[in-house]
């Protein structure tokens, strides 16, 4: 090949084509290659240092949850028709994939009680930020009011987006575990583009979504001008809870977003997963992401296509509804298969089961010495405790007993008031026996740490 193009060596191509100013000028600092067998042993040793939810009883949550993934999902996801294709720009050879997207979108609209949904986003936090951008496109205002009950990663992503567009993020504190309604009212004004909260919130509490929406719409007031618009009310939801919590669309929410991992996707080191995005029909043209639409072909037969592509960045460029235009089609497939597998009654039953077990877990754990509830709000599948001991040390002790008691709250939120906080998540894989074991292990760990602190 080199001879064909009249070049002496690979190095010569680099020398001739790449400007000296951008050349590294030295060899890459990589170790020498190893035989395949040695590489395998090395990687196996590294992997052996990991722990998964198969090896320990895990109560980790904070946005991603260890739910059971039925074999049916792997079977469908591994089909090459779903596993291999890229974006279905050619609808004529993508009908199966497009129909799945359409079914998924339909499921999301039913779950959220909103009229339109896209074919998914990357994950939850970027969907929250995208909702902030939708609000900016809708009303041109500059302030994003965000409850401190939002997932910290969502707030961080919102700040990243806001910085790029000269918007301000105002964080509203919690009171007694839920968004402080007075502070919420105070923060929202005529320059508020969107008012954003989580349901349930990061600390597991069920918010009064109806009230927060009402305040947001009322509080914005009006400066009397024709172009004045109320803020967009956004809720970040946990889809697993939508079988038993009132859908956001029935609570005055305009845009519902969320992390979809709990629906049919494993934890997998934290990804990939998908984000859900649903909105009132009026926001359809401001929505980011792919949208599958149902139509008819020239012979009048039903078919599916990617529709409203003029929102996307390959056409609208800097005026697009997002700089990211994609879908997590494979992960969303797992999501819609999971919902289909559960069915309407199954999703409700699952929610009721989680409610019962979460309540049981919270009562058992808060009865332990040195452990109390962080707040008294109703919870669905996750709750926060305050330990009278160093959380990291307690977690280490629990790990030795094969139990992961939950998330170190302050480590993830960075908030001083979360010191001693532990966030405990329940899934249907955590049996009553597992919860009793957690109580035993956590109780012992807290007692040991308190003892150690006394004698230190």
């Amino acid at each position, binding site marked *: 090949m080199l001879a064909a193009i009249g070049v002496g060596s690979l190095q010569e191509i680099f020398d001739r084509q790449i400007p000296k100013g951008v050349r590294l000028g030295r060899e890459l600092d990589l170790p020498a290659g190893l035989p395949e067998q040695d590489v395998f042993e090395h990687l196996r040793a590294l992997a052996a240092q990991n722990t998964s939810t198969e090896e320990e009883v895990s109560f980790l949550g904070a946005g991603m949850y260890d739910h059971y993934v039925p074999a049916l999902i792997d079977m469908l996801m591994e089909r090459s028709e779903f596993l291999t294709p890229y974006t279905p720009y050619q609808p004529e050879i993508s009908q199966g994939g497009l129909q799945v997207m359409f079914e998924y979108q339909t499921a999301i609209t039913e779950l959220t009680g909103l009229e339109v949904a896209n074919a998914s986003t990357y994950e939850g936090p970027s969907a929250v930020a995208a909702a902030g951008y939708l609000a900016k496109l809708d009303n041109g205002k500059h302030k994003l009011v965000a409850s401190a009950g939002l997932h910290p990663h969502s707030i961080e992503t919102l700040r990243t987006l806001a910085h790029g567009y000269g918007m301000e993020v105002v964080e509203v504190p919690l009171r007694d575990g839920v968004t402080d309604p007075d502070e919420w009212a105070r923060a929202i004004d005529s320059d508020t583009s969107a008012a954003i909260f989580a349901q349930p919130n990061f600390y597991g509490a069920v918010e009064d979504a109806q009230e927060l929406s009402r305040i947001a719409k009322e509080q914005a007031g009006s400066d009397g*001008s*024709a*172009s004045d618009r109320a803020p967009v009310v956004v809720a970040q939801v946990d889809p697993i809870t939508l079988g038993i919590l009132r859908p956001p669309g029935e609570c005055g929410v305009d845009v519902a977003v969320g992390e979809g991992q709990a629906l049919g996707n494993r934890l997998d080191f934290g990804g990939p997963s998908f984000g859900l995005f649903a909105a009132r029909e009026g926001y359809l*043209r401001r929505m980011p992401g792919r949208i599958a639409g149902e139509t008819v072909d020239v012979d009048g037969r039903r078919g599916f296509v990617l529709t409203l592509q*003029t929102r996307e960045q390959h*056409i*609208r460029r800097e*005026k697009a509804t997002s700089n990211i235009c994609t879908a997590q089609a494979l992960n969303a497939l797992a999501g819609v298969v999971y919902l289909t597998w559960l069915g309407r009654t199954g999703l409700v039953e699952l929610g009721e089961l989680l409610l019962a077990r979460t309540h049981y877990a919270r009562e058992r754990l808060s009865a332990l010495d040195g452990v109390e509830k962080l707040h008294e709000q109703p919870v669905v599948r996750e709750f926060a405790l305050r330990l009278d001991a160093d959380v990291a040390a307690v977690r280490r002790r629990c790990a030795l007993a094969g139990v992961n008691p939950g998330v170190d709250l302050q480590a993830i939120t960075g908030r001083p008031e979360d010191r001693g906080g532990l966030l405990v998540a329940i899934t249907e894989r955590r049996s009553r026996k597992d919860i009793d074991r957690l109580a035993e292990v956590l109780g012992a760990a807290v007692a040991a740490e308190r003892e150690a602190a006394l004698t230190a």
Partner: protein
Amino acid sequence: MSQASYPEDLLYHPEHDWARIDASDPEHATLGVTWYAQDALGEVVFFDPPAVGTTLSKNESYAEVESVKAVSDVIAPLSGEIIEINESLADNPAMINEDPYGEGWMVKVRLSDPSEREALLDAAAYRATLAG
């Protein structure tokens, strides 16, 4: 409208927008996009006008018109304040293709500086810009 048409009684902006100054009142004008614009866009599927009361600045975009394949800025040929918008385009945006100078009108404005009309092109001059 299948045949190219550029009515003589209109004034034109090189960015393919037209203005019809009200015969009885030079401070009022109706604005829209030309045959060339709708032809280049293809079938228009969406037009979202700005609200009544919005201020337009000459040469600047005041709205977007969306077709199946593209989105285009609508440029204001003259400066002024919107006093009326064509509500029927919300349900029937394709009227912009069918009758760009009639039922496809976009907004009516009260001009802030009627003398700006001097800078616009007549039908012949506008047609000449298309030939190039």
